[in-house]
């Protein structure tokens, strides 16, 4: 696979070693060893990494990191291994060890050192042991986690040293666990192993379970029974966590449903328009996010983390404006004919979809996650991803703001007055056409900001809206038309129900069951969960 025939590589290594001698003494060996990274096939690369790790030199860690990230290249002119960063059409080169600038190179002047997953794994465990003593606690923490995963008994002495020096209790705990993992794999005595099992069983997560399970399937004896006990206890705890995890996933799905449905709760729930173009308002919001990010990427890359904050008001305005336009040009002629609004808005949705498809193309568009939306943190034994968490927070926030707007502002009062009794409101001097337009605009605008959030977890394509429209209607109808609290409770109920069914029934069947449940529920309560009761609604 490697581009260089091995004989040439050998010659190059000799040449470089000679060349290296001429360099300042501190980096001489290291430079040669680093250069060895670029001279052979994967097997040679593995050996070179092992050699570098064996030096124990902390300077090696950033080099290996660069290798793993695909930043190391071989300069064709002298076969030296360099770190290259893209600049314009070529690369800026630096020395991987010292960081000294080495000038520029064209696209064809360097060849990337290719790595695969095996190499990355190797690098990770190597850097783990190299950075156990690092000054930065975060680095020590990740190093300890890496060592834990590899569970290499050879690292025990190093871990002992590190544990002795460690001051941060959190990091110390992980190191102790890493040591325990290594002890289990080592040939140490039963007492040590049983102590290690005790350490691991307090960790009580999936990784610890895996390690203990393999010990528990080992030869009989005190170690085996201790491990078996620990496995049983961890499994019990994990069961519990699984329930918590399902609730969280349900809440998270519920928040997505809430976001998708909340705009519809206004246009459909409050105004009575069967708004089939609702999904397209969400889509417009997502595309607004894309355009904002595209501008930021091209012109102000430093603002990327703010892209969503910038997109939010814009998405609200774009979708809201389109909403007002639709209301003024089509829907206002259809008040009181709800089933006809279905047909007209279905037509609008087709037009909007195709318009976006024609303008932006049919493909998915890339909307990136800002750094604060990426990754996850552990809460007990469940990984909570930041994007999901923020979407839950966001959905509730949007809901709260909307409630405030509708309940506490003059506009909200007028909206409720117009939807309750149009002629009365109009005779009281409320400009009903304006209120209609603004209410529809509000619903559409909210759909737009939902699009900003959904762009973080789903495809941004012309089909985006279609995939949410049915679910949105189900949520609104289930919750009870005309009641925002119903929408809130409905969204979370359906979300959690779905996620509890999913592990047992599978994703498809879970969804079918939820739909059947809605159909049956509507039989029981024909006007949804939070129906308005009384004479007026039935007259």
């Amino acid at each position: 696979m490697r581009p260089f025939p091995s004989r040439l590589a050998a010659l190059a290594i000799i040449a470089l070693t000679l060349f290296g001698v001429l360099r300042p003494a501190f980096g001489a060996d290291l430079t040669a060893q680093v250069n060895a990274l670029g001279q052979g096939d994967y097997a040679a690369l593995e050996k070179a990494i092992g050699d570098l790790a064996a030096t124990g030199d902390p300077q090696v860690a950033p080099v290996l990191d660069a290798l793993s990230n695909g930043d190391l290249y071989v300069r064709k002119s002298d076969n030296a291994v360099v770190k290259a960063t893209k600049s314009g059409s070529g690369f800026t080169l630096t020395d991987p060890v010292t960081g000294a600038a080495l000038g520029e190179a064209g696209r064809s002047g360097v060849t990337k050192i290719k790595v695969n997953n095996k190499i990355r794994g190797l690098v990770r465990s190597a850097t783990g042991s190299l950075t156990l003593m690092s000054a930065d606690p975060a680095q020590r923490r990740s190093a300890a986690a890496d060592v834990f995963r590899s569970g290499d008994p050879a690292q025990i002495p190093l871990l002992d040293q590190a544990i002795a020096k460690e001051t941060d209790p959190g990091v110390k705990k992980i190191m102790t666990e890493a040591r325990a993992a290594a002890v289990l794999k080592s040939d140490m005595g039963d007492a040590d192993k049983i102590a290690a099992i005790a350490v691991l069983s307090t960790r009580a997560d999936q990784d610890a379970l895996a390690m203990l399970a393999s010990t528990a399937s080992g030869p009989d004896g005190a170690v085996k029974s201790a491990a078996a006990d620990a496995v049983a206890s961890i499994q019990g705890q994990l069961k519990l966590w699984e329930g918590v995890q399902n609730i969280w996933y349900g809440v998270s799905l519920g928040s997505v449903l809430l976001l998708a449905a909340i705009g519809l709760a206004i246009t459909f729930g409050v105004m009575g328009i069967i708004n089939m173009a609702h999904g397209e308002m969400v889509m417009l919001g997502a595309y607004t996010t894309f355009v904002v990010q595209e501008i930021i990427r091209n012109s102000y890359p430093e603002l990327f983390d703010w892209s969503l904050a910038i997109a939010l008001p814009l998405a609200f305005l774009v979708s809201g404006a389109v909403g007002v336009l639709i209301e003024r040009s089509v829907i206002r002629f259809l008040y009181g004919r709800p089933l006809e609004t279905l047909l007209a808005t279905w037509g609008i949705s087709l037009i909007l979809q195709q318009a976006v498809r024609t303008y932006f193309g049919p493909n998915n568009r890339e909307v990136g996650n800002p750094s604060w939306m990426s990754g996850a943190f552990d809460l007990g034994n469940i990984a909570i991803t930041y994007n999901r968490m923020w979407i839950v927070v966001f959905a509730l926030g949007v809901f709260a703001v909307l409630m405030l707007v509708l309940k506490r502002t003059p506009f909200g009062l007028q909206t409720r007055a117009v939807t309750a009794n149009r002629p009365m409101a109009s005779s009281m001097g409320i400009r009903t056409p304006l209120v209609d337009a603004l209410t529809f605009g509000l619903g559409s605008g909210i759909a737009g900001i939902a699009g900003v959030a959904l762009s973080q977890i789903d495809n941004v394509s012309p089909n985006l809206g279609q995939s949410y429209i049915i679910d949105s209607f189900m949520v609104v109808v289930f919750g009870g038309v005309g009641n925002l609290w119903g929408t809130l409770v409905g969204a979370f109920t359906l979300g959690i129900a779905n996620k509890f069914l999913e592990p047992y029934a599978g994703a498809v069947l879970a969804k079918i069951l939820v739909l059947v449940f809605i159909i049956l529920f509507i039989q029981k309560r024909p006007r949804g969960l939070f129906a308005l009761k009384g004479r007026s609604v039935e007259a």
Partner: protein
Amino acid sequence: MITAFFFRALDGKTWAVLAVLLGIGIALPLLSLTDPSFPLHVPTYVVALVGKYLCYALLALSVDLVWGYCGILSLGHAAFFALGGYAMGMYLMRQIGTRGVYANPILPDFMVFLNWTKLPWFWHGFDMFWFAAIMVLLVPGLLAFVFGWFAFRSRVTGVYLSIITQAMTYALLLAFFRNDMGFGGNNGLTDFKDILGFNIQAPETRGVLFFASAFALALGFLICRAVIASKFGKVLIAVRDAESRTRFIGYRVEGYKLFVFVLSAMMAGVAGSLYVPQIGIINPGEFAPANSIEAVIWVAVGGRGTLIGPIVGALLVNFGKTWFTSGVLAEYWLFVLGGLFIAVTLFLPKGVVGTLMARARKKPDETKAPGALSPIEASQAAEEGA
């Protein structure tokens, strides 16, 4: 009694529609069998195309029966259409026999390569045409009965009913997509060989199927006409216009709704069963909520509350679809379709036929004899109240 029931429906206009439908049903296939040099020769392409339209027209008619006359806006009629199609598809699948690629005498091909060892219970009996034919009526009818029995008894009406019919077809869509269901998953049922022993691709078979479609449409039209002309039909319109008033004069509305819903579902099932052999495939895509909405739109375009309207609407919209999806206009098809829906709801709320009829009616006198086709405004007023 039955003859009187139909005879009552046969006014001049009905005769004309039946004659046109049956005329087309006979003439088109015959002309397609003529020599291509014959001046009136019709290419088989046109027969296949119009045959498909006729099935859609029957579906539209069934939607109109419940929507236009009883005010039940079903967004799930495609489900009945598809179920009828699947029943026919299962028969056609069983007819393949050992001619499937794996030459398995019992199991359809898709079961063979997905390692099914025996035929699921619900596939039994479909090797017989009469059984499949009964199922074409029974399965959609039964679903409509069960669904309607619950929904109408619980007085689920208006938008709520529309949304749960949509939920129903969506749930069926997902269910039929599942390969574990034993209906061929996404690929559905295909590769049919023959029907009642005749090669399904032969022009003669196509001709007969075409005639069958035209005949089914004519029959559907006649049944609808007879239903509408009876006192039952008057009750339906009463339900549409003022449901609770109808209850207060002693009609148990749910019974009427249920009857008409089941009848309509069976018509949709027949449409589906004729559609499948002409198209050559049935897959879960037919359950898509969008298909149901499209069928509703054919009715709206043609004119709901008239029986000719849905037929005209289905032919018109589908012809438009065929025409626009070829050549340079292909990319603009959805603009045209979307624009059409908006224009119809805004400017032609009675649909094409409804508007023409209203115009024709205006001249002689404002009012009309019993059984007159109703103006749409009245039903809108009722909807407002609902």
